[in-house]
């Protein structure tokens, strides 16, 4: 059994014209694996992520996280499940700008009413790991985007979630910060063994994954595994994308 099991997942949005956003997706992510999901805009990758992050409910099919089906839980139970088992990293950081960086990071722990000592220890450990010790007492609008995203990663991992979900974490960052953030995620994956699922259309970010899954028009299209060399993997991703979308020049090679 994998950490994340997706079985025959479909999502239909009902409206004047029903749209099938996802169709019959099967995907398994093993414990400790770092998987990227890629696809063009509108391919359904964000829908997939929303299902996994329990924010949206599937039309049919099943999702098991750590052998639990979150979509069968009650609302309050579900909130608790998200809080304990999942960690989120978003494109626009979603840090609360009324709180300091440190307060933002410990937020999941305060909700769990952990002891102050435990919070301080964990905060120190995670801040050191991500290199954000010196900005802990700053406010979110006083630090750079890269630092903000690292703070967001710290918040997403401080409670040691079983699954870390990242939605375009490098989408709002420059290439240097992107690289830095991805290195941090890789490091957390390696040292803590946290299972990660990353949705992105940035091939550079995807190249840090162990495996990249491609979605096209709501269906699984292909997947490629990373070998020893990240550079090679990056090239493979670019090739795959250009094959998928046709316009290779859109997918910048500038960042290489």
């Amino acid at each position, binding site marked *: 059994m994998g950490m994340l099991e997706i079985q025959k997942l479909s999502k239909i949005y009902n409206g004047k014209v029903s749209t099938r956003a996802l169709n019959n997706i099967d995907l398994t992510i093993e414990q400790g694996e770092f998987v990227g999901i890629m696809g063009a805009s509108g391919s359904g990758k964000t829908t997939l992520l929303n299902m996994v992050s329990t924010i949206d409910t599937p039309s049919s099919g099943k999702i098991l996280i750590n052998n639990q089906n979150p979509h069968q839980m009650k609302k309050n139970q579900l909130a*608790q499940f998200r809080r304990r088992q999942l960690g989120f990293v978003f494109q626009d950081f*979603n840090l609360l700008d009324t709180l300091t960086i440190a307060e933002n990071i410990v937020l999941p722990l305060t*909700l769990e009413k952990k002891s102050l000592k435990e919070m301080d220890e964990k905060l120190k450990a995670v801040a050191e790991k991500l290199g954000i010790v010196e900005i802990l007492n700053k*406010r979110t609008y006083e630090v750079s985007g890269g630092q903000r995203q690292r703070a967001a990663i710290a918040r997403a991992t401080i409670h040691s979630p079983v699954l870390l979900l990242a939605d375009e974490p490098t989408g709002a960052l420059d290439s240097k910060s992107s690289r830095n953030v991805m290195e941090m995620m890789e490091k957390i994956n390696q040292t803590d063994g946290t299972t990660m699922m990353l949705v992105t259309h940035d091939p550079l970010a995807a190249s840090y994954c162990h495996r990249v899954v491609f979605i096209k028009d709501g269906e699984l299209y292909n997947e490629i595994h990373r070998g020893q060399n990240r550079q090679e993997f990056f090239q493979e991703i670019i090739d795959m994308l250009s094959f998928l979308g046709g316009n290779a020049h859109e997918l910048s090679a500038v960042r290489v």
Partner: protein
Amino acid sequence: MRFRQFAFNNIRRNTFTYIAYFLSSSFAVMTFFTYLVFVFHPDILKTPIGLPASYGMKVAACITFIFSFLFVLYSISAFLKARLKEFGILTILGAHRKQLNYLIFLENMFIGTASVITGMFCGLLFSKLFLLFGENVLDLKLPMYVPMNAVWITIAAFMGLFLILSFMTTIFIRQRKALEMVQGSRRPKKEPKASIWLALLSVVSLILAPILVSQDGFIYISLALLFDMIGVYFFFTQLFVVIIRLLKKNRRYSWQGLNLLWITELAYKMKDSARMFFMITIVATMACTTAGSVLAIQRYIEYTYTENPFAYTVHHYNSDIDTKTNKKIIPVAEKLEQTLKREGITYQKFRLNTVDIRFKHLGYLDLIRQSEYQEIAKTLSCPNVSLQDREALFIPSNLDPLMESTDTLTQLSFVNQKLSSKIEKLKIKHQYTESLLQRENLVVVNDQTYDQILKALSSDPYTISQRDQYLIPKWNDQILPDVNSIEVQMGAELSSWEKTFFDHDKVALDGYIMSRAEDYYSMKQVTSLTIFIGVFIVAIFSIFIASFLYFKLFIDLQHDQRYYHELSKMGLSQKEMRKAATKQIAFLFYIPLFFSGIQTLVALSALNPLFPVATSTISTGLRAIGIFTAIQTVYFLIVRSRYLAQLKRVMV
């Protein structure tokens, strides 16, 4: 599409954004109009209390208008803030400032006109209800009429108001930069700043104020008021932020559960509209203090009725004055007795001859013969004390407490030189508190001493006031009379009978009649009217506070929705959201109330000795605060449920 059409369509298609502003403006118009219908009611001016009351009512109308002005001003600025982004986009698209101003001006006038019409229409429906309520409280007949006066004044006042506001808002917009506008309210807010010194000043002022208030003297009272204002103002702008900061420093508390969420948000919300909260506190205090005082006065009036055992008192004029004129003298006592007989009411009559004598420390007290007192005492079963020469029975009235306590007093000393040399002092043999002659404080001495005192005074001008007290046992059941009771009716009849002889050439009365029921009832009408108007103002004001808080919350709603949406993704449950949000709203509602409650109590306890009141103003003040709190709690529950419903929608 012409510009005017654009402005009109803007409103028509954006109904949702405009509706709050429109409704609150209509509401302001409605309350003002309803009130004017009442003030200008032709039948109110005809009543005996009409003229003195109409001045008060006009003042109240001004206050209502000022409230409406602030209320509309606030809603308009709230409304414009919500639309900053739209203005920003228009600016970027190349709209002139002039055009933008014109747009805002047109919109305001559209909405203004619409709300004046709607408000007056609703007011017309509502005023019938209001008049019915007034009829009940004031015992008057108030039929509906065509309130042309009210219509014109309302139209003039509010169209003027909207015109002024339109100009003011264009200034409000002019100061903004395009970038700021485009970002709208999405910009991250700066952390609230506070100066520790000003916070300390606030603490010191808040401590000083009650200390100063307990001192005597006008200067102290005004100083106390000043310090109180300073204290409360800096509480909301500075001290509160400092307190929140200290709370956050204490991580054992702030990093616990939901505390981190609501504490931080509260600091922002409070600081954002600190001035408004200051105003709320002060006005609520004023309202509660006034309400407490009026209630205390009413209680006092009830007391003057129930504590007075005599239904009628006939005061006789000094006989030698009337003989000089050649008028025919009509004895009032006879008229009263005839009237009582006609109605078949049995009575007991007591004649009293009292002399006003000034005593050291106590001022003027009424001297009574023991023989006269004993008759009354027997009937009313008051203590009967046998008095030797120069001994006195002292009976302070409980309706007009003396400044100093007399419990330990053992003797009464005269101010008059002759009296103190001949009689020296009066030894107090016994004393008890009772209002036998309403507010008069009595000294009973035996007949011999009484005559000695008169003799000693014989060369000085002194007056014996002669009065007849009428005891009507049937009416002494301690129940307050209403307008239809015989006692009130007869009192009114007698007083209008008396009035026919005022300035009469040929006939004069030999005295005048005081009817406790008449006195009570006419005083009661004045206080009822005051309370009626007061209740109306307090009601408007509390609605105003509630809508202000409602606006405050709903301006921030977008921000809060985002805030809770993000938190809910992270795993904040709905239950926790409710808890955190409820705490926040509760603080916003109840902190000003808490302050005004304490201030009211301090103010009323300072006012207490100024009142000739046997009841405490504190208890009536507490009642006023209680009622106010109850009303606010209803609003709190409504606002909370609406706000939570909005937040619930974004919870995943």
